[in-house]
């Protein structure tokens, strides 16, 4: 049972495409299998929870049920998916009535394919849902990764940005207030980690950027302005929504803070991929809104 099942979540098929591309490329380069879960559905994210709680739990549960059949851990790269799936696991474990209701409904309506054909879908709640940061650092290991780094990103000053939902309210693999996993991974990739960046777990505005743009711009401006003031070259992220919010609106941010804002926002997998010597195109670097080349060139000149 080597390798992992992979739950991309909706965003990684859309705006988060570079995350998926770079994640798959990195795992392939490290020789670790990542197999997409068959017929996964949306996790429900934060929106479903605001409308119907039972349905939200049911949505996540179907994925958990599909995933537990292989006996492998499930990798969920999107922070929101990761939290929703993990929170649902906790609630199913702590609330027998809830679990019974969901199991009954699922067995009656959903199926899965096993050796004997289509069978009603059952749920035990036995799968472990993991974030790629956790898997890379705690399973694959920094030593293994360091060995495979061929092009360390020396001179690149990177601020690790974890966002909210992989450290709150649950923090199974890192410190809640001062997480270090991404810091260590970026250091392994040769980056200069900006340990002084104070907002590594501060909210990016999430879906408010769509619904109340003024509010969203406010939050992102704080994050970008501080990074610029600290001479940071790149902010590294671990969530598609964080990436989109931090990168997509820098024109508006510039107006808000009265300074130029052209700060590349890259997935930690993209940076790690570069260090592993993977072709930038395979990492989706060209899909960035903010040009990345100037920063990389400056680094090359520096090195």
């Amino acid at each position, binding site marked *: 049972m080597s390798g992992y099942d992979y739950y991309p979540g909706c965003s990684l098929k859309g705006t988060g495409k570079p995350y998926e591309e770079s994640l798959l490329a990195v795992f392939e380069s490290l020789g670790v299998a990542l197999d997409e879960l068959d017929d996964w559905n949306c996790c429900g994210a934060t*929106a479903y929870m605001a409308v119907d709680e039972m349905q939200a739990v049911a949505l996540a549960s179907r994925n958990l049920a599909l995933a537990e059949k292989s006996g492998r851990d499930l990798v969920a790269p999107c922070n929101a998916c990761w939290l929703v799936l993990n929170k649902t696991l906790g609630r199913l474990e702590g609330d027998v009535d809830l679990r019974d209701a969901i199991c009954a409904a699922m067995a*009656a309506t*959903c199926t899965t394919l096993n050796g004997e054909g289509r069978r009603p879908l059952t749920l035990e709640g036995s799968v472990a849902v993991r974030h790629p940061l956790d898997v890379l650092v705690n399973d694959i290991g920094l030593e293994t990764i360091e060995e495979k780094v061929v092009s360390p990103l020396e001179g690149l000053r990177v601020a690790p940005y974890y966002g909210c939902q992989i450290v709150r309210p649950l923090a199974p693999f890192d410190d809640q207030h001062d997480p270090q996993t991404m810091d260590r991974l970026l250091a392994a990739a040769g980056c200069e980690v900006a340990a002084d960046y104070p907002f590594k777990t501060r909210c990016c505005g999430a879906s408010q950027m769509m619904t109340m743009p003024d509010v969203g711009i406010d939050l992102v401006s704080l994050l970008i302005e501080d990074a610029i003031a600290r001479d940071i070259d790149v902010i590294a992220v671990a969530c598609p929504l964080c990436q989109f919010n931090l990168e997509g609106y820098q024109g508006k941010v510039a107006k808000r803070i009265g300074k130029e804002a052209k700060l590349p926002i890259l997935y930690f997998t993209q940076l790690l991929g570069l260090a592993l010597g993977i072709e930038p195109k395979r990492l989706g670097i*060209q899909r960035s809104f903010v040009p990345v080349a100037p920063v990389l060139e400056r680094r090359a000149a520096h090195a």
Partner: protein
Amino acid sequence: MATEPMIRTEADRDPEFADWFTDLVGEEKLRECIHCGICTGSCPLASHMDFGPRKLMHLARQGFSADVLGSNTIWLCTSCYACTVACPEQIPVTDVMYALKRRAIEGGQAPRKHPVVNLAKGFTGQVHRRGRMTEAYLIAGLALRSGVLRYVGMAGVGWNSVRTGRISLLHDQIERKEELRNLLDAVEQHGGEVAVR
């Protein structure tokens, strides 16, 4: 200029709402709030709220349902959980916000054209139909329902996304849509509010 008096009488209170609210979390935790304000202090959006989570929860405990459900506070919560992990009384504030959102939507107290509500409804509608969410349609739907104009300023982002191949007009969907829809309908009939913790 019209002024809204900041005075409430006992007649404004809705005791049933207060009871419903305090029962959301076990062990009477919601009654044990010590008003330290760390929820509001840690909230990245408190500065935009009618009142921060501390005050909102106090109003709810007192049964001022109209103030609570009519406030923008619950719609501004981004589920970042900063308040939840900071609370010295271990109140799961974010989950309480979810419950208030549901109550407002179910009771029809949510602002009719509020973009957050529209986004949530658009999102759930899509997922209910197709099992997955496609960003292009989510945004388009939001723009249509909440008034197109406020999204004009966002057009740059849309163009960038198309340019870099990060947005697709193809609907993403799952194979066994029918099964998922039946599951969602089945649990909806089961119904009922699940305790927050």
